[in-house]
């Protein structure tokens, strides 16, 4: 594509052939107001706000920049007196048409348009008939659910036969594109369809915010690039849309990209697959998922985060700020119904929450605990500080969280029913919000990973290390290490320490340059082997492979630990262990006996 040079407001602007004057101006940072323009849609030329004055071949004309093609040597004025006068006139007409549109009022203010001299439309009228909604619905979404009807001064945006009240002609997918592009907020999905739109909830924000089908998974994601959610993207559903493509200047969007399986040959592997948060909805009596304002700790974590969905404001479902918050410890941990182990991190993060609540709001905080386990460096001090901040610590695991009030004070609140074990009494505590400090549990796919790497798991389900004291990062297989919560609950400092250790172990192997193999390894006598593969099944180290061509089993000496399981398991007695052959053993016995 060839480059064009034109002048916009006295500034030399370069653009590509095929671009409009508006695109050229935008590229050069020159602002031209628009209402009916959208980069992903064909220019419509209806709002007439993007008018500019052009001088081409000695002729001066006023044209709409959204669809006037950029030409070499074109002289464009975006704010000439003529343009400003016309733009003002157009804004006045818009203002008279849609006095309720905030965007129009802003434009009017910017261009010094006061009260229109014409008869005003209804005070709450917002629609300016720019057609963005109908065009995105047709051109991109391919639904064509809404369209213009009638003509002239009677033109409107409507669904055929106003199907909002009837479902049989409803072709709307409730995708919300119309409401999304509307510059004045005149259209809502409820205007279009009786269907309830299903929001796409952000995984990273724990469902507290919505995300688009194309999104960056979270801030500082690695790589920090957007991804397309195929299950939600309209393009993958209908073949249409591709609006993102129109926005992406470097044209980086590739709809053909598929998931790839990449094979990498490595010398060692560190497994750091992390954990899952305990799902508290299984504890029915705590009401998670049923009662508004019962949150998991991770949801609350997102809420208090200043980069989170509420901008760090603690808010209840109805938008109010809570006056009292209960934090329930050991949800799913130290509980023989769920996990018997202690999740180790909950006490401290619960206290952090208490501290943050006090910092953000004036709410009362009640911590329901069994024991406080503040064992790390500086942790006990933090506990004391939180105590001083007037956080109420109540020893006792709540029996139930309910919204059924028994007294007038409990109306409209959540009530925590518990036994205060220090007093030995049943009590009820009304609060506005409950945070469940959920425990850590093994990831739901830990079983398959364990099988893949041949790692054992301990009784709690986490990966089992080689030796809890002497080799806490290694596994029974050489070159495979574990780090972090996949091995057991731990907090960040512990995780960092373990991960560093694992990295050091791996580096040690690399820097050594060689691998010491076990001297006493099994060996298959291929002449006798029948290829029954029983040995392969019994090998705990996946050291035996089957040679399809020769129909025999073979031992990988670097993996073999010389445990001898295969030797004992071979029905045809064709496997022997180096240094422990039958002859050697017989000789040893003979030597000992005689």
């Amino acid at each position, binding site marked *: 594509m060839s480059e064009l040079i034109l002048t916009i407001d006295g500034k030399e602007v370069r653009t590509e052939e095929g671009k409009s004057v508006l695109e050229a101006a935008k590229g050069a940072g020159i602002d031209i107001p628009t209402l009916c323009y959208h980069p992903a849609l064909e220019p*419509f030329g209806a709002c*007439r706000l993007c008018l500019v004055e052009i001088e081409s071949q000695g002729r001066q004309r006023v044209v*709409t920049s959204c*669809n006037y093609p950029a030409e070499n040597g074109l002289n464009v004025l975006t704010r000439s007196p003529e343009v400003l006068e*016309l733009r003002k*006139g157009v804004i006045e007409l818009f203002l008279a048409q849609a006095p309720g549109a905030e965007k129009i009022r802003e434009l009017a203010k910017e261009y010094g348009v006061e009260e229109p001299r*014409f008869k005003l439309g209804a005070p709450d009228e917002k629609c300016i*008939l720019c057609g963005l909604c109908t065009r995105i619905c047709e051109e991109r979404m391919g639904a064509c659910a809404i369209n*213009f009807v009638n003509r*002239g001064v009677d033109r409107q945006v409507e669904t055929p036969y106003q199907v909002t009240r009837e479902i049989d002609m409803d072709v709307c997918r409730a995708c919300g594109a119309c409401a999304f592009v509307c510059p004045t907020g005149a259209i809502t999905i409820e205007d279009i369809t009786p269907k309830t739109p299903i929001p796409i909830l952000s995984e990273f924000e724990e469902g507290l915010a919505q995300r688009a089908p194309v999104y960056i998974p979270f801030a500082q994601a690695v790589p920090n690039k957007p991804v397309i959610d195929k299950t939600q993207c309209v393009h993958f559903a209908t073949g249409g849309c591709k609006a993102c493509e129109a926005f992406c200047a470097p044209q980086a969007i590739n709809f053909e990209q598929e998931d790839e399986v990449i094979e990498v040959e490595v010398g060692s592997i560190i497994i750091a697959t992390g954990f899952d948060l305990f799902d508290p909805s299984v504890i029915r009596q705590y009401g998670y998922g049923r009662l508004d304002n019962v949150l998991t700790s991770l949801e609350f974590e997102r809420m208090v985060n200043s980069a989170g969905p509420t901008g760090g404001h603690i808010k209840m479902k109805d938008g109010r700020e809570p006056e009292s918050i209960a934090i329930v410890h050991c949800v799913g941990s130290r509980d023989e119904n769920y996990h018997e182990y202690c999740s180790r991190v909950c006490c401290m993060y619960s206290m952090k929450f208490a501290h943050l609540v006090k910092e953000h709001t004036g709410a009362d905080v009640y911590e329901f605990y069994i024991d406080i386990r503040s064992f790390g460096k500086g942790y006990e001090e933090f506990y004391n500080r939180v105590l001083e901040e007037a956080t109420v610590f109540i020893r006792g695991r709540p029996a139930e969280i309910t919204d059924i009030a028994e007294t007038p004070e409990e109306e409209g609140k959540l009530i925590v029913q518990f036994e205060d074990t220090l007093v030995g009494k049943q009590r009820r505590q009304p609060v506005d919000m409950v945070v469940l400090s959920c425990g850590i549990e093994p990831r739901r796919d830990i079983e398959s990973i364990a099988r893949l790497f041949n790692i054992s798991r301990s009784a709690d389900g986490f990966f089992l290390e080689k030796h809890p004291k002497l080799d806490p990062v290694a596994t029974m297989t050489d070159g495979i290490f574990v780090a972090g919560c996949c091995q057991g609950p731990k907090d960040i400092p512990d995780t960092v320490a373990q991960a560093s250790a694992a990295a050091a172990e791996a580096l040690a192997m690399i820097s050594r340059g060689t691998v010491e193999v076990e001297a006493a390894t099994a060996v298959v006598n291929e002449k006798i082997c029948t290829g029954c593969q029983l040995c392969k099944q019994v090998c705990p180290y996946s050291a035996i492979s089957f040679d399809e061509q020769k129909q025999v089993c073979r031992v990988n000496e670097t993996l073999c630990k010389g445990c001898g399981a295969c030797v004992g398991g071979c029905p045809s007695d064709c496997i022997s262990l180096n240094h422990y052959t039958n002859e050697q053993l017989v000789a040893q016995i003979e030597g000992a006996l005689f």
Partner: protein
Amino acid sequence: MARLNSPEALEKLRQEITAGRDPDKPCITLCSGTACNANGSEKIAPVFAAEIEKQGLKGEVDLRRTGCHGFCERGPIVVIYPEEICYLQVQPGDAAEIVQSIKEKKLVERLLYKDASGARIAHEPEIPFYKNQQQVVFGFNRKIDPRSIDDYLAVGGYRALAKVLFKMTPEQVLEEVKKANLRGRGGGGFPTGRKWETTRDAPGEPKYVIVNADEGDPGAYMDRSLLEGNPHSVLEGLIIGAYAIGSHQGFIYVRAEYPLAVENVNIAIRQAREYGLLGENILGSGFGFTIDVHRGAGAFVSGESSALMTAIEGKVGEPRPKYVRTAVSGIWDRPSNLNNVETWANVPLIIGRGADWFASIGTKGSKGTKIFSLVGKVNNTGLVEVPMGVTLRRIIFDIGGGIPGGKKFKAVQTGGPSGGMIPEKFLDAPVDFDELTKLDSMMGSGGMIVMDEDTCVVDVARYFIDFLCDESCGKCVPCREGLKHMREILNDIVGGRGKPGDIELMEGLSKIMARASLCALGQTAPNPVMTTIHYFRDEYEAHVNEKRCPALVCKELIAYHIDPARCQACMICGRECPVNAISGGKGIIHVIDQQKCTRCGTCLDVCPARFRAVTKLSGEPVPAAIPERERVLVREKK
């Protein structure tokens, strides 16, 4: 019918047709345009046929139903050839007498045209309405049966096409049209040859050629009459144009309101196809061309070229926001050339008689003739074809016969809703593309609506704005919203609610609409208001400041009053008044109750002309009713 495979075969056929026709054989031609049909022409035709048979003239007298003659005011029109004796306003009962007169070689005096002095004129070309015209494009309309291709061939039809296909290259055709300086008859007056060239040179195949017969200008119907009366001339022009441009597909976009035109053009296409004048390998030349007829569904804005092409694509006929000409990127983004019916009908004449002949007619910038539809408050309404450059006075007074009822001429509206009103002082201005533009009006498609002193210009301006409110597509803001407010303001003014500053507000709004609108409809929409303000500002001011309608038209500003000195207490008005607002009885002078009166004007209509007791007042108080005792009318005993 056999396909004609060479120009020689065409000429042979033509000779056969003319040979079979005796020029001296009497022929009754009956105008069968829509207007004459509406006046009863359809019913008269069978009566004539029966009468010819009855009087034993079968085979000796021909009967032919022709296209529109133009003099629609006096339809149905019957012309007897070869003498061209013209009978006007013929009724079924007159058939016997007319047929008889042919037999006896006499005239039916009472049906002849009567001029102002009362003298009868027998021959059609001598009637002043025709005498002052130069019917070139329109001329064959009254001679041929539009449903007979043989009739068209007999008058030399498709000769120009044969010439083009076998003796000229496309470039030569283009040059010829350019040399003739033919300008588009549809509105803007863009040079046709240059437009063709643009499409020809534009990249992309296929190319399309289109006939715009979406004649939306209210008050203009020449395209209808041409398409109804001589469809083959339009087809021939279109095929020639297609050859020059290199197109093989044409469209004719006709308003669905013109059912007869649709019917006749479809018949013509079928006939042309049967003769091998359309379709593959026309006349054996190797050039192929087909035409589809597309009916418009009633939208003025669809006459705009890009909107029309969108409509042909089957979509809502809205203008496209493109700065690329439709000549380069039109239907399905292919080069498309659009001309209106009259323009295409000029093409065979230019080819047949030469560009020099064509350029000898008309003025410097505007060549050839133009058909105007002369309507409104004028004696002889109808279609008139005159050379470019003829003055308005000649058209309205010499051809049109002036204003009926001895009223005074006030203005003539040209160019339809996009045009303007031209006041009396410019009556001597020559009519061509450039002169009309100088007068803030335009040629448009050739509507010429004459207005007399009883026409209120503010009311007419409001009428046009109302029309445009209805006909705008509503896409762009200046046009849609601007028209809405313009209508609001004008309604206020004619309703007596005008405020000082309203006129200036409309002027400001007009500028925004004219400069910021998307298509020509919006850009020219304020014209009716602008020109009337320009030429008749005093009338606007009378409406706004004095609450007075000088032409006594605007309902809310006028009052009906019965002059007690003239009222003969005949009770007619009292009986006819739909709201019983008139009191009085036999012998008691009638009085209108102004509270009840709806200003429908019935009383004025029915008051016998010799009394003329009902008058209209505006801007002055209605005289108080005369005291009860004076109301008794004392008639002088004879």
